[in-house]
């Protein structure tokens, strides 16, 4: 049983390595994500951001502009997720002393 586990693990590793061979090189300017026009002839987003972030928002850090301005909905959802996690921790882990003393 243990050897079967290792065999499955090795096969999975080999599959992941084989899949990673098809990816473009990092920083390749001709990778599809860096093109001005995507393979389905829609304008590429990343080159637009790189060209226009400084002009649109007067902010030097491109990542800040993308996170808070171009993708504002995304950050709003992320913050809602954090808020929900905090509220769930509050509801699951809070002290139930008053209720317990009433019952006991």
């Amino acid at each position: 049983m243990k050897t079967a586990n290792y065999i499955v693990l090795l096969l999975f590793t080999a599959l992941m390595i084989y899949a990673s061979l098809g990816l473009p090189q990092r920083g390749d300017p001709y990778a599809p994500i860096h093109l001005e026009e995507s393979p389905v002839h829609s304008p590429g987003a990343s080159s637009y951001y790189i060209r226009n972030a400084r002009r649109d928002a007067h902010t030097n850090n491109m990542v800040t502009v993308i996170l808070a301005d171009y993708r504002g909905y995304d950050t709003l959802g992320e913050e809602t997720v954090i808020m929900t996690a905090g509220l769930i921790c509050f509801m699951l882990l809070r002290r139930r002393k008053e209720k317990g003393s009433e019952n006991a």
Partner: protein
Amino acid sequence: MKTHRSNPIVSLVSRMVSPFIMMFALYVIFHGHYSPGGGFQGGTLIAAAIILVRLSEGSDTAQLQFSRSWGTPLGSLGVLIYFGTGLAAVFMGGRFLDYAALHLAHHASMSRSYGILLVEIGVGLAVTAILVSIYDNLLEGEADA
């Protein structure tokens, strides 16, 4: 923690270091336009400074710095700052989260820059309050279950 034994060296060092961590966190939030950083990282750093005081001084003494009951209201306030910035843009004639419609400055680009700053402050406040409140609930809750 059941019995908190205070060590003077640890207590002194953490009390000395904590304001500087908070100062660096404020730098990270407000300088996020020009250097790496932003609301999330800065808020986490403030939470780390508060939790450092809580670890060294004991959770009961540290309530004087950041009370246990502030966590949920401040977190809600942070989310409301973000959402209110987006909603104010709607009321001033733009689209949701379109900071150029807020007219915070003469140029639309500067207005968007200030809008990003407002949003980052909201994110930092929410992240600080929520992380500290998770720590508090984890430590204090279910004590007599």
